[in-house]
């Protein structure tokens, strides 16, 4: 991804993330979240992670956010009447700034930014991802199916009407 394209997409991604966080109406926040997830998918494709980018669009933008929108509409949520203000808002902003500072110090302190490693043939292709997934990560992959089964059963049990 060229530097110019990086800055354009990064600015849009930060803007849409702020749109999720600052929008009072939950439906608008969910729409901003869709835009944010699409922009991250652009980054993934630019970083030679095509399958991850496609999955991002299908799973996140397609399934998870639709689930959010269904729940928002099911509960008929309105815009927040009373938003956080005063000391609580200052505390939240300060916590955000401190988190950013700690992450930057932790990630970049004393690091020598070497050149990107040479990519093997087929890097980022579905075939290569599947090969790693079904060899080295075969056990976690199988455990994932168990996790999803538990999540399905748990969600049905929790959301079921009593009686």
């Amino acid at each position: 991804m060229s530097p110019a394209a990086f800055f354009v997409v990064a600015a849009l991604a930060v803007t849409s993330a702020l749109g999720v966080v600052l929008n009072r109406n939950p439906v608008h926040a969910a729409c901003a979240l869709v835009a944010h997830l699409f922009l991250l998918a652009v980054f993934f494709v630019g970083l030679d992670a095509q399958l991850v980018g496609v999955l991002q669009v299908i799973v996140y933008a397609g399934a998870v956010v639709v689930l959010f929108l269904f729940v928002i509409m099911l509960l008929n949520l309105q815009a927040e009447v009373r938003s956080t203000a005063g000391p609580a808002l200052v505390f939240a902003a300060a916590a955000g700034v401190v988190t950013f500072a700690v992450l930057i110090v932790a990630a970049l302190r004393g690091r020598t930014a070497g050149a990107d490693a040479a990519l093997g043939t087929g890097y980022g292709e579905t075939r290569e991802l599947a090969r790693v997934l079904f060899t080295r990560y075969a056990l976690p992959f199988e455990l994932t199916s168990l996790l999803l089964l538990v999540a399905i059963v748990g969600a049905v049990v929790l959301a079921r009407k009593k009686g």
Partner: protein
Amino acid sequence: MAPLDWYLWLSALLFSVGVFGVLSRRNVIVIFMAIEIMLNAVNLAFVAIARHQGSMDGQVIVFFVMTVAAAEAAVGLAIIIAMFRNRETTNADELASLRW
């Protein structure tokens, strides 16, 4: 090609926006969305570092993070529906008690 550091800065910035959202919002569903932003910021760092090191492992981990996030969203939203049914609110300030 944008260097790795830029991606790490962006990832840290997006994660901080998510932290701010979790702390500043009162609607539990919007808090949930802010958590999704944080998860995606970490995914971006994983993919960028995987690209930098020329290894596929980071992309596989993003795959697992997505699965866990999907399961978390399903169960979390079911919990929110159950809470709404009992308390008629999704305001985090009014949902302070664990049982009622």
